[in-house]
């Protein structure tokens, strides 16, 4: 059966097309595009992707308005049924605002927008998103954000680490995130939020600085877990 992925577009999303392209490039099937005002998701989804961007112009707080848009009620219900959900950058902010993931993303500690390719250390290898990575492996994925400074109280951070729910860490401090956390998983491991953009690293380029395929592996991990499900 073909892999069925949906990409949600909010007003102000700007990485939705990149996400759809990455999903089609890795799965061979076009992703279904869903608008934020829709009340229902397509049936039998294998993945829901919340893309990067500046939904609702980052009004109030990054992701706050999108988290309360009509489609998010359906996304929350699907997540509760166990449908995998991937939120990247603004998508991660939406997932925390919707309380599908703990914590919050504050303004970068250095106040500056950070836009470069960073080294990430893989901290979890058991989720559908990370199962093909090796523990402690370094992967290179681009970041581009102003509000990526992950915050949670000490008790929550200890819980996330204790339960193996930190998916990725920045190998070197990037934005002030608590314990250098770059991505976190839900308790059942089926919701991943991450600030770095795997959809921007799906093929190598002639100039190494302009490409990279480590992000492609994350999508291949999802497909592999789909194939064995």
């Amino acid at each position: 059966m073909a892999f069925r992925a949906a990409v949600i577009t909010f007003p102000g999303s700007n990485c939705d097309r990149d996400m759809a392209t990455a999903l089609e490039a890795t799965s061979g099937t076009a992703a279904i595009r869903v608008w934020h005002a829709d009340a229902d998701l397509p049936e039998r989804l294998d993945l829901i992707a919340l893309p990067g961007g500046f939904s609702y112009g980052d009004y109030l707080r990054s992701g706050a308005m999108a988290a309360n848009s009509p489609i998010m009620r359906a996304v929350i219900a699907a997540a509760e049924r166990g449908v995998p959900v991937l939120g990247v950058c603004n998508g991660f902010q939406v997932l925390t605002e919707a309380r599908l993931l703990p914590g919050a993303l504050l303004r970068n500690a250095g106040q500056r927008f950070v836009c470069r390719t960073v080294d990430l250390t893989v901290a979890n290898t058991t989720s559908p998103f990370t199962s093909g990575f090796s523990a402690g492996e370094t992967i290179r994925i681009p970041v581009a954000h102003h509000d990526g400074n992950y915050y949670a109280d000490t008790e929550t951070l200890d819980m996330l680490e204790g339960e193996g729910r930190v998916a990725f860490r920045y190998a070197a401090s990037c934005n002030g995130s608590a314990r250098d956390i770059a991505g976190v998983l839900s308790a059942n491991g089926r919701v991943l939020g991450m600030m770095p953009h795997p959809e921007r690293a799906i093929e190598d380029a002639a100039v190494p600085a302009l490409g990279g395929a480590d992000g492609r592996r994350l999508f291949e991990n999802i497909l592999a877990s789909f194939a064995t499900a």
Partner: protein
Amino acid sequence: MQVRVLVRLKPGVLDPQGRAVHHALEGMGFEGVADVRIGRLIELDLADGTDDAAIRQMCEKLLANTVIESFTIESIG
């Protein structure tokens, strides 16, 4: 009726904007500034008789993110 909601970062949550403004004030020569914290003021014009529980829900569900922020509600007429 009008209500004023003040949303603040909780104590202990880093406020990079506040810190930058603090440094700017010091750079301008103002002395004795111990700390700067930036919050958000939201004024709501509501139907008369809107109950407190409904206003609290507005704050908890949207106006503030209680993971990082606290809020106070004040009636202003």
